[in-house]
């Protein structure tokens, strides 16, 4: 039986002010798979990822990563995950290399492992000698590649990626997707990602959960979902489920 990396059960989240972002969300992610959460704006994708990343606390329900509860055992969870927020930045007065060194210092057991992480991230980012420049001189694409690299270099048990290609052009998006696919397969990293881009989800994900108004309304592999809803692609599935206009 495959190991369950993420177990979310009847998760509720009510923000101060009364907005209910999650209304009984449940799903699981198995070891080694890439699981995509897709849904319209305000569906609760980012809230879910932030709860799993131990930034937000659930109002009720449970969320576990490798059996550790995100609310009561956040320190243990943080050792297993690497999180890339949608609007992540980096310290613009550090060089790319210094930034990687900063992140690696929290994960590496010794200097050798840290050097390994940095070398790997340098390669993943594809920044070449620009890695030694200050981050403030980087383009949006370069910054995102650096952030993807810092997330993957630590070989997390679970990589949580919120809109990994958000705001990137086609070339950079394709490059980032290739990096994620290649790297996760190579090191057996489990990935939980959210995206608005159905092509991206279809290309990357083994399984997809469609989230709408704080609940999972459909789940399965892209092929299963297309067949279930008689659709040609995930965009059609998505539109049919969330009640968008017919394509």
């Amino acid at each position, binding site marked *: 039986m495959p190991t369950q990396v993420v177990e979310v059960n009847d998760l509720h989240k009510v923000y101060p002010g009364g907005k209910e972002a999650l209304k009984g969300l449940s799903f699981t992610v198995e070891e080694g798979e890439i699981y995509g959460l897709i849904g319209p704006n305000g569906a609760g994708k980012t809230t879910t990822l932030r709860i799993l990343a131990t930034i937000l606390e659930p109002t009720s329900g449970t969320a576990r990563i490798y059996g550790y509860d995100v609310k009561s055992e956040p320190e243990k969870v943080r050792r297993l995950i690497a999180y890339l927020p949608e609007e992540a930045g980096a310290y613009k007065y550090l060089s790319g290399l210094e930034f990687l060194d900063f992140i690696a210092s*929290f994960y590496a057991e010794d200097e050798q492992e840290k050097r390994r992480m940095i070398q790997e991230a340098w390669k993943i980012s594809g920044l070449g000698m620009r890695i030694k420049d200050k981050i403030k001189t980087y383009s949006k694409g370069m910054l995102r590649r650096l952030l993807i690299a810092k997330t993957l270099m630590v070989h997390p048990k679970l990589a949580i990626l919120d809109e990994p290609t958000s705001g990137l052009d086609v070339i950079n998006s394709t490059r980032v997707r290739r990096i994620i696919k290649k790297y996760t397969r190579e090191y057996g990293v489990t990935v939980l990602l959210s995206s608005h881009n159905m092509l991206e989800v279809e290309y990357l994900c083994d399984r997809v959960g469609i989230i709408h108004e704080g609940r999972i309304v459909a789940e399965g592999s892209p092929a299963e979902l297309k067949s279930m809803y008689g659709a040609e692609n995930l965009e059609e599935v998505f539109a049919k489920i969330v009640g968008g206009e017919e394509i």
Partner: protein
Amino acid sequence: MRSAFLTIFIKEMKSIIRDPKILITMIIVPVVLTGLMYGIMGAMTTQAVKQAMKPGGEILLVDLDHGYWAENFINYLTSHKYTVTRYNDIDSAIKNYDNALCILVIPKGFSENLTRGYTAYLQVYYKIRGISFTSMMMGYKVYGIIRQYSDMLSKQILEKAGLSPEYVSSPVNSTSNIVIGNIIIKNIEPSQVTGPLLMLGLFVPLIIGLLAGFVAQLSATSIAVEKEQKMLETLLTLPLSRFSLIAAKVTAAFIVSLIGGGAYFAIMAWYFSQMSSLGATNSSASSSIALSALVKAVGVQTPAVLVIAGFGTLFLALGVALLLAMFVDDVRSAQIISGYIIAPLMLSIFIGLFLDITSMSPIQQTAIAAIPFANLVFILSLGLAGNYTAQLVAGFSSWAYAIIVLYIASRIIGTEKIFTMKLFKRKRRTSLGFHLLTR
């Protein structure tokens, strides 16, 4: 491997040193401007005082007396390096008043009055040419030389009459003795004691207040930078303790503030030493007697308590700034927030200066000693009053508050409140808080 504390501390130091918003606007520019301001003020004051004390200069003289004592006075002026340019009347002297010190009129009857034993008057006309410190000091120069001449004549007259000039000028005099606490210091000028007292009771608290402002601004900025550079979310998911995070930020802000504050202190100390050296008349021996007696009177522990309270106050300002900065989104808001801390802090210290704590009962003194920031001013008075319990309260209460505030800060940073609570409501779509509340 490097500890999480050291990793964050090194990052903080690099960010502070490299970020022009922090290093230039918050440290270099204020320190350089203050240095320049005090430098210019010091140089100008020193120059003006030296000019005023240096004998000599041009005096336009209108001699309407033409008598023995008029000539004697004119000779006295020239022998003291003054250039005397004579005019027949005041109008022509005024017309030629360029860079002269003044117009001096020796009225008719000047010599006769002096000869007959009456007071003789000189008329000084001083033209106001501006409001510069130098020009005003120069105007007083002439009164000094007239006073000298008058004292010389007085001495001669009294000696001729067989009287002691010292006796006649001050038949009744006094010696000054100071009582501080239970200590009596004999034959000492009050200024020799009030100087160090002001230093401990006023100057040191104000410097600590200034430093606390620095610390508050830097620590508030250090948290806001994380949000502005969109690193806070990432940072809070890293495997590091919240305490390490807070402690590293606090330490970095503290060290940089100490450097900045040290620069301020050096500038101010230099300025005041320049100013005090201009009018210094007391010997260092009597000053050190006064200082050691003062330490005995207030208790040897007082300076130590002041230092302890000072550091406690700095950590408290730092903690409060850190706590408030958690609920703002950018550096600008953080700097506004730190202004909210600095203003009441300085006000509290100033109120403390006007409060006579010594007239209160010991219980009231102890209660008031627990008021943060203001208690810095009370430490000396409490030492003089011998209320050492209240002094200890003043010394350690800020530490207690600081620990509580920093504990709350480290608790909050570990919760979602850091994202969901906002002090300034903003409508910008890029705001993290906005996204959190709408998704």
